[in-house]
């Protein structure tokens, strides 16, 4: 099966059909970054290597985007078709917290500490088809 069209291909590495987040790691001090950077704001080093951040984490904080964002948001929605979406910081196994869309936008189903896993969601539909971005969804275990 071909991989979906991504808004940001550099962020994702596939293991089979399973997406993983990709960031970078400082060669000097080991600090992790997402998205990948070419310098370390912790120790000021400039030698970085790509790093697989995995696909599992826990919810560290969350909100629900209740209004249609202005540009540069380009989902193609209108105020009439807009549907609120969840946004959170997801604490990965390394401790790095990644900001991400959530598949859940219901406040009664979001709780700090809940286990999540990476998925891809279509955030925009164009004449050429759907464009996907990364998101986290509830999972059975962390």
């Amino acid at each position: 099966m071909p991989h979906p069209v991504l808004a940001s291909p550099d962020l994702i590495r596939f293991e089979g059909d399973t997406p993983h987040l990709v960031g970078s790691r400082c060669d000097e001090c080991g600090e992790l970054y997402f998205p990948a950077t070419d310098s370390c704001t912790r120790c000021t080093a400039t030698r970085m290597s790509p790093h697989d951040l995995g696909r599992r984490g826990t919810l560290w904080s969350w909100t629900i985007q209740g209004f249609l964002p202005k540009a540069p948001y380009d989902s193609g929605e209108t105020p009439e078709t807009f549907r609120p979406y969840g946004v959170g910081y997801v604490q990965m196994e390394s401790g790095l917290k990644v900001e991400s869309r959530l598949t859940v936008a219901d406040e009664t189903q979001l709780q700090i500490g809940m286990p999540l896993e990476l998925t891809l969601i279509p955030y925009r539909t164009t004449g050429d088809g759907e464009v996907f971005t990364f998101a986290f969804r509830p999972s059975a275990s962390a």
Partner: protein
Amino acid sequence: MAQDVAIIGIGLHPFGRHDTLTGRAQGAIALRAALKDAGIGWESVGIAYGGSHDAGNADALCNDLGLTGLPFINVANGCATGGSALASAVAAIRSGSAEFAVAVGFDKHPRGAFNPHPRDWGLPDWYGETGLMLTTQFFALKTRRYMHEHGITEDSLVRVAQRAFRNGALNPQAWRRREMSYAEIAESMPVNLPLRQYMFCNPAEGGAALVLCPAEVAKRYHPKPIIVKAAVVRTRHHGSFEVFSPALAAQQAPAPTVTASRAAFEQAGVGPRDIDVLQLQDTDSGSEIIHMAENGFCEHGEQERLLRDGETEIGGRLPINTDGGCLANGEPIGASGLRQVIEICTQLRQEAGARQVPGTPRLGYTHVYGAPGVSGVTILQR
């Protein structure tokens, strides 16, 4: 010992919506008012620092005020624009490079939330395109985590907003002068939960200006000069939880507010307990709550009780945002930090009318915070 610097003139063009005035016109009105308050002419000003985010170069004010040839430095530092202009003006007087300095800010923003461009902030396009680059989201995410860690409930979020509009109703220059009921705020539209419509300030318009001179000559120009004991700007450290962060480091570091606040208290030689009246950045209710502790005015988690017991009201031990803050005045970015300083000067001069804090306040405090992680703090003394 560095020379003390005094504020001898304050001028405000009230914040709000002014369809017939440009942002710059509002800045010019504020600046003329500040010069009149100080009793000096524009031609006496030796250096000026000014900024505006959306309303053009501040230096264009010279076309209104007069082309006197003075050095005019345009300041562009987000929400800390006013604080940075003031810190620079103070440094100019201290160094002896001018007898009179001006700090001025104005703005006029389009309606609705700000829409920043990722590249201006060193961020990739996808971050904005996929709907993650909103200041309101950041405030909500930081507030939610803070509530979780420190036992703050939605009650506090409502009380902050309620007090802001109550104070705004006492302030003839405020934009929003209508008191709101607890339920009206608590049940308002969810914008970014846990934050709701009336817990957020709105972009607005307005102008604010200050005139400064060496403290030793200040009484020649104004009977109640206000001494700037500290004016500090600090930016973020690696690991602090800042607006527009696609990720946060595993190990968290203190916010720039914490480092700016500590440096300001050290410079002024006073502590949080000495402050009689204060302004804290309240882009939203949650931020004000967090800023109470980050600036050293209480322990983390203590805010819930302080708000419930009325300690942050005009008559309380810790009067916060006596003019209604950003919530009741709106936020014209270039002018907002100077509006805070003007309110503290007004309180220390005991000219705040119905919203005047009781007694004889001696020390005041102002704090701004903004993207991408910059904070400005001043400590002012009567």
